């Protein structure tokens, strides 16, 4: 499995890990180095990497991945409520449950491809979302959202309002006030929480890299480029597709559980189809099919969301004060549509601009820029190659 990784891949992994781990310092200058946002970077990075395994490699556009995030969150919170505040069981159970869900949904949805597949996944996600709000309220606590509570005193208290935490009770771990998620006693909020997510992000990145470079990944790419041809050669593609779907569902489940770990509440709005749309945008923005792209996209979107929605006209006036008054007022008036409440408008524009002008995402853009700067080098290289060919 590891033998398929070249030296460049190991280098990429090391650089990636180093960058992720120094983020709390590296992001200081742009004002993004606070734990909440850093945790979001890592969590949505994981989500996007997972989504990319399906969309980037096989080309199957799922519009229902948010359902797995929701499942992951609910399972994690239930694990906190019933078993222990330790995060390890929560993570394992969430990923496992997401895998089960992904298998069921994938088994059905992958009977069709193209737009039909998108609609099927969308239908399943909407079903989960609607059920979470209505019939499943005993499990999901409906609109209020599922929360971690204090240990219940009597058995009459419903499980939603009072927790059991069997394992914690067994070991006699004392609880003071609102229980906080922990990793064997280490509190999972603030920077420790970020580092927990970051380590998982690196592991996920590594797994995704192995998948991409493996024969399995090769097969997925083959499905993307021409599924018919694969079928003609006698290869049954569905097992590969289902595996890819389940793996990416597990990534989403992991992301969901991490959301619950850093903030122990689970709500159905995480499953709405706009949330699925967001992860598509992250992947596209960074560059579908690339390894680093989705993480980059997730980071950029989350950063922009935090920043742009916190801006207001005052900040804009300050930023543009160097310009002449008339121009300044005009620009402030124009930009004020896009900031604060108008963040979604910015998101929509970003969506369109990326899809229209840069379908390959930022990684494609970077490649093009590199190509245009290094044209001389590459032409020389190709020239020397043509020269050397006759000699062989």
């Amino acid at each position, binding site marked *: 499995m590891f033998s398929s990784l070249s030296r460049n891949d190991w280098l990429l992994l090391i650089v990636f890990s180093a960058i992720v781990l120094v983020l709390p310092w590296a992001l200081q200058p742009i004002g993004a180095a606070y734990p909440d946002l850093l945790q979001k970077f890592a969590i949505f990075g994981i989500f996007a990497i997972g989504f990319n395994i399906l969309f980037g490699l096989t080309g199957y556009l799922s519009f229902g991945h948010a359902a797995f995030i929701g499942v992951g969150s609910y399972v994690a919170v239930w694990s906190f409520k019933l078993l222990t505040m330790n995060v390890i069981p929560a993570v394992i159970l969430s990923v496992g449950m997401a895998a089960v869900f992904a298998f069921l949904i994938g088994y059905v949805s992958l009977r069709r491809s193209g737009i*039909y597949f998108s609609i099927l996944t969308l239908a399943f996600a909407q079903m989960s979302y609607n059920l979470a709000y209505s019939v499943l309220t005993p499990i999901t606590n409906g609109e209020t959202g599922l929360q971690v509570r204090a240990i219940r005193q009597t058995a009459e208290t419903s499980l939603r309002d009072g927790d059991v935490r069997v394992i914690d009770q067994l070991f006699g771990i004392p609880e003071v006030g609102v229980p906080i998620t922990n990793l064997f006693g280490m509190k999972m909020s603030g920077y420790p929480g970020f580092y927990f997510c970051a380590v998982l992000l690196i592991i996920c990145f590594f797994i995704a890299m192995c998948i991409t470079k493996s024969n399995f990944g090769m097969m997925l790419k083959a499905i993307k480029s021409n599924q018919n041809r694969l079928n003609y050669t006698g290869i049954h593609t569905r097992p590969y597709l289902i595996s890819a779907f389940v793996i990416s569902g597990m990534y989403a489940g992991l992301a969901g559980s991490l959301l619950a770990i850093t903030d122990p509440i689970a709500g159905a709005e995480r499953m709405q189809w706009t949330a699925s749309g967001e992860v598509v945008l992250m992947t596209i923005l960074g560059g579908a099919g690339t390894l680093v792209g989705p993480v980059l996209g997730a980071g950029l979107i989350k950063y922009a969301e935090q920043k742009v929605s916190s801006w207001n006209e005052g900040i804009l006036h300050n930023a543009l004060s160097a310009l002449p008054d008339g121009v300044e007022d005009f620009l402030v008036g124009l930009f004020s549509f896009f900031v604060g409440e108008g963040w979604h*408008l910015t998101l*929509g524009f970003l969506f369109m601009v990326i899809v*229209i002008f840069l379908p390959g995402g930022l990684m494609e853009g970077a490649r093009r820029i590199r190509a245009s700067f290094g044209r001389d080098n590459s032409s020389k290289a190709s020239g020397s190659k043509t020269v050397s060919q006759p000699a062989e």
Partner: protein
Amino acid sequence: MDAIFLQILNGLDKGGAYALIALGLTLVFGTLGVVNFAHGALFMLGAFCAVTLHRILNISFERVSETQKDFLGNPLKEQVPYLQEWFGPQVSEFLLDWSVPISILLAIIVMGIIGVVMERGLIKHFYKRPHADQILVTFGLAIILQEIVRHYFGANPIPQSAPDVFAGAANVGNWVGLGDNVIYPWWRLVYFMFSALVIFGVFAFLQFTTFGMVVRAGMQDRETVGLLGINIQRRFTVVFGLAAAVAGVAGAMYTPILPPDYHMGMDFLVLSFVVVVVGGMGSLAGAVLAGFMLGILQSFASMNEVKSILPGIDQIIIYLVAVIVLLTLPRGLMGRKGVMED
């Protein structure tokens, strides 16, 4: 029997809305081969045409009142709509009362223009791109449209009222001899009639006019029609405008039933897509049939008797039907061979 009849009626107006949106969606599929995720936003824009018209009719100026005085005896200021000043109170009352039906005219014009501009400005460049790209770019456009509406109209639903003539409920049961138990709001009946009329109009347009004939030929074989020297592209653009206008009037007329807010388009879009898929991609009759069928199914599923047996079924029935149909009938109920198959 009463209950069943009432549920069928209940499903008709919602089914009408689904059918109208799905009709436009499938028309765009069939002609341009484009998956338009912004179609729900067009429905929403249509609904806001009605809101806008109502506001325009209400534009007023301030003047000193001749009759009313405050407690000190000073004359009060009052708001007078320009309409009342220009045409007198009766006409103004009438126009305000009938603002929703009148807004159809506005919706047709505005939405037709928006549709054509959208097709020429954006969709045109996406014919050859993969469906995923089309979905994504129109999804982005839908977000933009709904955010612009939210910016101008706020996030709260804005109730609109139907004309007074249609206030109250019709005793439908009496008409068909079922006694007095089946009563049904007038406006919903009107909406059903209206949607049936529009659907009939679109079909007649495609079936009985030369323009429609060319469009149908283009749906069958675009290249050959082009070889005959017909500019099929321009006609398809008009069809896109038509689809947008249909979605627009569907939205405008729906406002008395459901107060429009900025995200109503997204809510309807997902359902309409399911409707299109169930009906069969590119099949107009299929879209209409599936629209009404799913509307009626949904209203049956929300009966208390059904809900007590299968809790939550009302929330998921449409999606469930979609899953079953897609897995058993890959082309949907009435899908044609070769449309949107990969």
